[in-house]
């Protein structure tokens, strides 16, 4: 039973560029949440997708957008990258009807130069 997978593992971009991160949820899960984790901090909620729609959103600008596909996988897009976007981006999956227990992937380390 595959857990949550994310790609790529690491990514280096320059300011102003755009990036797309990908996530495949744990088998059987239908909900995907994205978090940003700055160095030394706890994860901060970006948004959550269920049934291909954004259901909740944290305090992040519109430069952060996402998508969920029919197979429940998801993408996180960040436009006009800033130095402050450098962080570990975590994807977590869950089963909507099973409550809030979320399983995290290993994350994508994004460095913006």
């Amino acid at each position, binding site marked *: 039973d595959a857990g949550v997978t994310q790609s790529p593992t690491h990514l280096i971009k320059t300011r102003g560029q755009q990036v797309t991160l990908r996530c495949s949820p744990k088998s059987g899960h239908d909900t995907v949440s994205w978090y940003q984790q700055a160095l*030394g901090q*706890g994860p901060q*909620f970006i948004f959550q997708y269920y049934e291909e729609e954004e259901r909740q959103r*944290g305090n992040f600008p519109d430069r952060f957008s996402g998508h969920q596909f029919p197979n429940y996988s998801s993408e996180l897009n960040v436009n006009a990258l800033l130095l402050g976007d450098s962080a570990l981006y975590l994807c*977590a999956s869950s089963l909507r009807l099973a409550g809030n*227990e*979320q399983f995290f992937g*290993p994350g994508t380390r994004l460095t913006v130069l």
Partner: protein
Amino acid sequence: GESVGLHLPTLSVQEGDNSIINCAYSNSASDYFIWYKQESGKGPQFIIDIRSNMDKRQGQRVTVLLNKTVKHLSLQIAATQPGDSAVYFCAETYPGTALIFGKGTTLSVSS
């Protein structure tokens, strides 16, 4: 905004000791709490959870205690091992909201 905080940023213990990691939460509406362990370079790993209708829940070598009166959560690790060295986060949520994480406590276990 509301957030979950941890009392100590670091905790150092000897192998075999019992460890206690504390967390204070601010939202009295929170009804589900989770402890995560995060090792370097990895995503958070679920350890144990507890719902607000419980005061205590035990797992393998871990116990979570919830005191709703003072909005306090703790994680107890029995017979701490070097492999327990990691950053520990508590997280809270209530229906319709996302997980809210604190800043974490770094547990260092020396042998």
